[in-house]
């Protein structure tokens, strides 16, 4: 066993230095930052688009006095409810046939409100009527009440903590942690698919297989890629933190996960490593069967789809803490790290994490072993039925 770890480290060191010291690694580090930078540059612009243009516009086809009443009511409600809460109103010529007006090519409104404030008539498509009816009823009611409508003042009573808010905050942390872990895994683990192609095309696999157990080759490659991922994450995380500080971010406003930040971050690192090695060992096993880069590229899509399904399962489970879906997602090895990090955000018990980490590590070992045996069987054309050799020593 000691010899296998030693050999794995030799391979890991070679792979790690080969990747990190290559010129393309700089692109690898900068790549994920580009969308963030571009997003920041265009943030103001896109924000404007979303706040002004995307609300539905309803045409008001009423006598002028009625229209003014509606507009005043709209303004008063907007003051209380915020800019984005209500539909936009636009004056259109009064018409006896709103249907025809809506059908005109230059019509820029979704629906037309005609009649009077007391008896308004809304004309439009059924699905638009469904979503606009409530807003317009509220505006018309406010217009009818005019000055008699008195806004009730809500008295504020501030408290330091609120269990409901805390639960909401922790749920959010769990979701964010899941999403971040998922994106990092999808971004980084897919690279492992092509990891053995170089050795196979350059015939180096023969040198390696003659000197060390294939288990050590697989393990070494996983260790190298995981280490490389941590370099990337440290770089991206550091940059994100620097941007957060530069923008005057307030860390105190961020809710606290159930297990506390230090334990949560440590668990996040461990669960990322587990998610990465679980998927990585699977990808390594699948990719090792491929003979060419083209075959690896073909495998990319189904593999990404598989990752998406695992993520959906884990994110579905987060809303069902302690219930069957969450327990199933925690037991299923591939979704387990994502489910457990969400659990760490919401529940302060630590023993389930110890259990989950051991469980996940067992599966990493099992998947590597199966991958190795399949590699020996189908690529090296050696060994018998793989399941018969699953627990035999790997010393050739």
């Amino acid at each position, binding site marked *: 066993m000691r010899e296998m770890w030693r050999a794995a480290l*030799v391979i890991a060191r*070679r792979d790690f230095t080969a990747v990190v010291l290559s010129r393309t690694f700089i692109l690898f580090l900068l790549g994920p930052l580009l969308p963030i930078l571009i997003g920041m540059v265009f943030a103001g612009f896109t924000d404007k688009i979303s706040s002004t243009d995307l609300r539905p516009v309803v045409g008001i086809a009423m006598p002028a006095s009625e229209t003014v009443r509606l507009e005043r009511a709209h303004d008063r409600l907007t003051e209380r409810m915020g800019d984005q809460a209500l539909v936009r109103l636009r004056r259109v010529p009064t018409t006896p046939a709103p249907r025809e007006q809506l059908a005109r090519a230059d019509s820029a409104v979704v629906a037309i409100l005609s009649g009077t404030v007391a008896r308004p008539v809304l004309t439009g498509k059924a699905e638009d009527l469904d979503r606009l009816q409530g807003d317009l009823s509220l505006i018309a009611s406010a217009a009818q009440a005019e000055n008699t409508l008195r806004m009730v003042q809500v008295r504020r009573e501030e408290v330091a903590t609120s269990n409901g808010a805390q639960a909401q905050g922790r749920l959010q942390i769990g979701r964010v942690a899941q999403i971040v872990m998922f994106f990092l895994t999808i971004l980084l683990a897919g690279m492992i698919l092509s990891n053995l192609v170089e050795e196979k095309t350059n*015939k180096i696999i023969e*040198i*390696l*297989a003659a000197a060390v157990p294939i288990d050590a080759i697989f393990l070494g490659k996983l260790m190298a890629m995981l280490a490389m991922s941590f370099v990337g994450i440290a770089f991206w995380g550091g940059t994100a933190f620097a941007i957060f500080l530069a923008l005057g971010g307030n860390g105190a406003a961020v809710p606290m996960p159930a297990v506390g930040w230090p334990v949560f971050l440590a668990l996040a690192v461990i669960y990322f490593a587990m998610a990465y090695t679980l998927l990585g060992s699977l990808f390594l096993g699948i990719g090792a069967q491929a003979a060419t880069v083209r075959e690896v590229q073909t495998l990319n899509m189904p593999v990404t789809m598989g990752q998406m399904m695992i993520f959906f399962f884990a994110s579905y489970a987060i809303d069902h803490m302690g219930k069957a879906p969450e327990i199933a997602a925690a037991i299923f090895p591939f979704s387990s790290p994502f489910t457990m990090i969400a659990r760490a955000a919401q529940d302060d018990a630590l023993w389930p994490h110890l259990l989950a980490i051991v469980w996940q590590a067992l599966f990493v070992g099992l998947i590597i072993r199966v991958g190795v045996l399949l590699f*020996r069987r189908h690529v090296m054309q050696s*060994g018998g039925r793989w399941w018969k050799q699953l627990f035999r*020593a790997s010393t*050739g």
Partner: protein
Amino acid sequence: MNGDTPGLAPAPAYALEGHGLVKTFGSFRAVDGVDIAVPAGTIYGVLGPNGAGKTTLLRTLLGIIDPDEGHRRLLGAEQPLRMARQVGYLPEERGLYPSMKAYEAIAFMGALRGLPLRQGRVRARAMLEGHGMGAAINKPIRQLSKGMAQTVQLFGTIIHEPRLIVLDEPFSGLDAINQEKLERLIREQAQRGVTVLFSTHVIAHAERLCERVAIVAGGRIRFEGTVDDARAQLRSQVRLRTRARDGAWRAALPGDATQEEGAWHFALPDGGIEPLLRALLDGDAGIESLSIERPGLHDAFVAIAGAAAAQQMRDDAEREALV
């Protein structure tokens, strides 16, 4: 190096053993019931044409692939990879990481077999400088010529000072000068007590280097023994030219004697040449020339493996020379 490896105590008489080895790929039996024993400290050749099963046999013995039947023992160990630190292996298909520097590639190959990386780097530099390749030390493999890259891989095979060196077609792709260098290196290793096992389809290398050979054809070992044993499979050939065309002396010629361009050819009789010589002198045959030629390994190979296999080996060698 040898001090930190398991199973050191009494050195086994055989560096490599295989008994009843069978390896099939689909319906093709690449190795078909092979028994082989490579004595420790010898230079041992595995001869055979391409496709004879040499590479599969070596890979099976080294533990790269498992046999379907039979068992093997490498430096006394049933599980070959347990002795990996004491073995150096140069595969037929050469492989190095193209972006690695020459000395790093050598040190890496040593590290795979347990040599500390730092020590490997020092040795690698010394090896390259000692063989006139100092300029290549820091060059990436992709910038080296094929012959230089092959030499780098060979150094990587012996950097950790193994007790057993296995070379699969080591002369393939080398020019005459580098072939000569490689032969010298093999002899140097053998003088240090290292067992060297190599496969080749060029009989001349085996004839010059090997103490023992195994002739492989069709996945089976057709002969195993010393080069002299192989030659002894055939009787020496006698070539006789006489001035007299005929006489009583002709009755003394063996029954298989044939005449070609005025000369007699026949296998050396069991009783030796003396009775025939006496008959030639007594019968006034007038001996113009008499030569006794000991058969070469090639002749033995033809006799053992069959003319077709020998022809294939000649073709392989010629094709390679052209390349």
